[in-house]
């Protein structure tokens, strides 16, 4: 770029201004020719032209011609909102062989001719063009910031989300390392049997994934490994890993990281619904295990050799907790969220039992049945058909488990059933199953090391659930699966695919191009106060380094462009005005204000 200049204060005096009639949309209210006459006389303006439709080919050609002939080296187009044609004109400038960032837009349709009329509109259009010209004079050619990136992704967590992310990314030709802290892959799928609602075997699904991943040439798997440290930034992270068995340390250099650290089951506190006090109170995971191993073919389900005549399934244990009603954990936290998967899993288990062991009666005690997903409502309907008895409790009247006065039953469950006039009832039972919810696996150490946000629900927190649902604010770090929120296997796989697509798009070229609108330090002016470093909102984007100038050591601010957000928090605090944002400089805004207060005279 021959025009590239490191001196920010350089101003050009060859601005070309192009004013659009917009077929009357502008010219009906703004006297376009009068504006042109005024603008032409402004200092620094080399040419000022008008056109019926500046966005049309003749309009664009006019700009290209002026650039090529060297008449101008900065462009201001005054037309409709920049959202419509800013890219059009930047492209035209590119076609002329110039740098697209020498362009500034004056919005004289949406913000002038469509909202003001008569002389005021003409005057305001003039001032806005003067202001845009003032900014344009300080524009400089910019190039996208290019960060070399290692075509390698590290997945943390070897559950279904981690495996799927690894397979997806590897397929696009990017190398993958998968790190699992336990000895086996598969995560929670190892603890499940028939999956709701359609009854696929968890082990079959896991096997299908494992068959693909173990022999995949681009994927390296490390089990029994702990991550000790993470450094670097997008494209260039380094992980320090240690093996649990022999304390062997090694490094992984990687371009992107996907957190797929998964979840665990909520463990009821001692005495919660009789848990830990009565052996007949078990959690859903135990029941699934019992059903998986059960070989008995009688008409009654047997658990530990004892026939189950009646059983109660209690929903929302460790989920949907309400302050003031539920007992907080030791850290003072409540699980206020819904665990999403338990309703369907409970109904699935109930249907299996009722269909295979019709002699076992089931009572489901719930707050709301949340069979939201595809095929799930049918489970609920089926359970009713299977004569599962549904009883509904309110959060402020939780079911109580006590020893049964009846000789045939060890326990009874007291419930105020809001489906039958809020009547209080005692249900004698042989077995109580608690639908324990999902909690994120504790990765607080890793999260604080990597500066990853954690939500009030203790799950890892994405940037935005709709705009950037699988990304962290740290560029190059993604998340997938139940470390983010409760999900079933299919949903975790969707999230894995979404994270994989982002990681592949990021790394596919081996380098990353970032917007050039980042902070730049004027080394001559910088006195090394460090105010900018303190104000910087992005850790690592700005630092003070020592450099030797003419034999003396000086402290100077240095921007890591790959990390800079371009927000300008640094520019606001520098006493020397030695740091500013390329393309959106504070100095440019000051000039724009001058142009505005002088009605265009001070350009």
């Amino acid at each position, binding site marked *: 770029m021959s025009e590239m200049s490191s001196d920010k204060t350089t101003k050009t005096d060859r601005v070309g201004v192009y004013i659009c009639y917009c077929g009357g949309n502008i010219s009906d209210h703004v006297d376009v020719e009068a504006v042109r006459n005024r603008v032409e006389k402004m200092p620094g303006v080399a040419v000022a032209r008008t056109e019926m439709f500046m966005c049309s080919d003749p309009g664009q050609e006019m700009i290209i011609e002026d650039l090529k002939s060297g008449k101008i080296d900065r462009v201001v187009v005054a037309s409709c909102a920049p959202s419509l044609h800013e890219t059009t004109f930047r492209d035209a400038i590119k076609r002329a062989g110039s740098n697209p960032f020498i362009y500034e837009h004056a919005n004289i349709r949406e913000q002038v001719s469509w909202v003001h009329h008569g002389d005021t509109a003409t*005057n305001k259009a003039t001032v806005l063009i003067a202001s845009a010209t003032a900014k344009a004079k300080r524009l400089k050619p910019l190039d996208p910031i290019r960060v070399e990136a290692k075509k390698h992704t590290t997945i943390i967590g070897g559950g279904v989300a981690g495996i799927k992310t690894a397979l997806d990314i590897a397929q696009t030709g990017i190398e993958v390392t998968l790190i699992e802290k336990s000895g086996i892959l598969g995560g929670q799928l190892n603890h499940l049997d028939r999956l709701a609602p359609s009854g696929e075997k968890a082990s079959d699904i896991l096997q299908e994934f494992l068959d693909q991943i173990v022999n995949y040439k681009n994927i390296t798997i490390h089990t029994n490994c702990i991550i000790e440290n993470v450094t670097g930034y997008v494209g260039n992270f380094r992980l320090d890993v240690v093996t649990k068995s022999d304390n062997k340390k090694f490094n992984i250099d990687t371009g992107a990281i996907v957190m797929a650290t998964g979840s665990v089951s909520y463990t009821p506190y001692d005495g919660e619904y009789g848990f830990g006090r009565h052996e007949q109170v078990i959690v859903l995971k135990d029941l699934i295990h019992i059903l998986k191993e059960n070989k008995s073919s009688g008409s009654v389900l047997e658990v530990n050799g004892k026939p189950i005549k009646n059983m109660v399934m209690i929903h929302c244990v460790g989920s949907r907790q309400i302050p003031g009603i539920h007992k907080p954990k030791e850290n003072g936290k409540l699980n206020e969220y819904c665990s999403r998967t338990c309703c369907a899993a409970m109904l699935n288990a109930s249907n299996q039992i009722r269909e295979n062991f019709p002699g076992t009666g089931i009572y489901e005690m719930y707050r709301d049945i949340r069979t939201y997903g595809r095929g799930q409502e049918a489970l609920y309907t089926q359970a009713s058909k299977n004569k599962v008895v549904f009883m509904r409790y309110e959060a402020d009247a939780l079911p109580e488990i006590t020893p049964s006065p009846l000789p045939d039953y060890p326990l009874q469950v007291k419930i105020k059933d809001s489906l039958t006039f809020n009547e209080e009832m005692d249900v004698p039972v042989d077995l109580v199953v608690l639908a324990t919810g999902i909690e994120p696996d504790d990765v607080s150490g890793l999260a604080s090391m990597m500066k990853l946000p954690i939500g009030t629900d203790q799950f890892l927190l994405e940037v935005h659930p709709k705009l950037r649902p699988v990304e962290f604010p740290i560029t190059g770090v993604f998340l997938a699966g139940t470390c983010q929120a409760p999900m079933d296997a299919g949903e975790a796989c969707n999230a894995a695919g979404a994270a994989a697509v982002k990681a592949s798009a990021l790394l596919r070229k081996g380098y990353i191009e970032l917007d050039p609108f980042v902070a730049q330090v004027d080394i001559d002016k910088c006195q090394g106060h460090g105010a900018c470093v303190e104000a910087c909102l992005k850790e690592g984007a700005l630092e003070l380094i020592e450099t030797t100038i003419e034999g003396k050591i000086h402290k100077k601010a240095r921007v890591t462009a790959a990390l800079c957000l371009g927000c300008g928090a640094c520019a606001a605090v520098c006493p020397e005005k030695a740091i500013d*944002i390329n393309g959106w400089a504070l100095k440019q805004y000051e000039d724009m204000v001058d142009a505005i207060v002088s009605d265009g005279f001070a350009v």
Partner: protein
Amino acid sequence: MMSPQAKRQENKILILATETCAYPGADSVGQTHSSYPANTYILRVRAPVLFPESFYIDCFKKGISGIIVMSCGEECPYEGAYKAMAKRLDSVYKKMKAMKLDLKRLRLTAICTVCNRAFLNEVKQMDQLVQELGPPQLMA
């Protein structure tokens, strides 16, 4: 160059509008052809956290009668920038107080891409205020 309405034009309002929220919001007002006072000058900004205290004070010294910072509010795409900017405005208010400038001349608000009524309200209120107060009597 001054028009007959020049007197009114002396009361200039500067609007710092974020490129992701408030600036497209102002365009949306334009699309509905709703009229609003022409003494408003909208500058497209990435994040208003760029502006130091002195920028605001200098604007008043240069003769700007009122400033509206139209931000994205808590939906700010730059993590932490909104809070830092809101904190900065607090110290601008302190300086304005010391200079005996009416604090209402500087206003922080959140405007989204389709907040047409909110935009018009803000502009109308600031215009009424600056018409009452006139330009700030400070000299640079």
